[in-house]
């Protein structure tokens, strides 16, 4: 089997990239938690990242897609709101802030884990190089 000493670096970096994209999506969700209009007459739809492995075996991760969450929009009673229907109800985005905060924690921890792998692997290679002291 071909061994690539720098392979783990690429894999850890791919994990970091995927998680930073994930955090980007999460920040969009949090920022638009109250957006009742997305420009097409619908409230903001919560986004989710779909991650996938590059290929079989030991590979990095890539972000395959960003998909909308198809759960129903909650409605609140707010007559007079420009986006309210004839009964005075406004459709709100299907973003739940506590859930987003939890996902943010998960993403940040995953990012941290990837940097920890990168750092530790760097130390390992440097230990190997100590053989040539």
């Amino acid at each position, binding site marked *: 089997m071909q*061994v690539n000493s720098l392979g783990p670096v690429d894999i850890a970096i791919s994990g970091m990239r995927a998680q930073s994209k994930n955090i980007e999506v999460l920040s969009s969700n949090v920022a638009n938690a109250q957006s009742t209009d997305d420009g097409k007459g619908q409230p903001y739809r919560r986004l989710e990242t779909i991650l996938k492995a590059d290929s079989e075996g030991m590979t990095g991760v890539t972000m395959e897609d960003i998909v909308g969450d198809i759960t129903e929009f909650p409605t609140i009673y707010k007559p007079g709101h420009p986006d309210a229907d004839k009964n005075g109800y406004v459709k709100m985005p299907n973003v739940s802030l506590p859930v987003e905060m939890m996902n943010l924690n998960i993403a940040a921890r995953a990012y941290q884990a990837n940097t920890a792998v990168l750092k530790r692997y760097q130390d390992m290679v440097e230990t*190997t190089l100590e053989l040539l002291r």
Partner: protein
Amino acid sequence: MININPNVNNSLPINIGTGSQTNAKPANDGGFADTIKAVEKQVSNVDDIQKSSEVSIQDLLSGKNEDITTVVTEVAKADMSFKLLVGVRNKLIEAYKQTMNMPI
């Protein structure tokens, strides 16, 4: 990937041992000259190891082999046998000098 065989005898050219043994027995013919011949063999042996380590270094630089660990271990191995050779050489020179300085 890494050869963790603790038996370094296979990879180390320590055939010098037989040479010094003949040196210790004055009844045998040869003596010092035999030892030098054994060292010659060791020199070419060490040279082979060095050359193969240099090939692996070139493979690393040209991207044919991307495993740092094997390259480093090969270089370390070559260095070890080289150090042994230098040690033997220094001892031999010392022995020669002592012999030459012997008061007759």
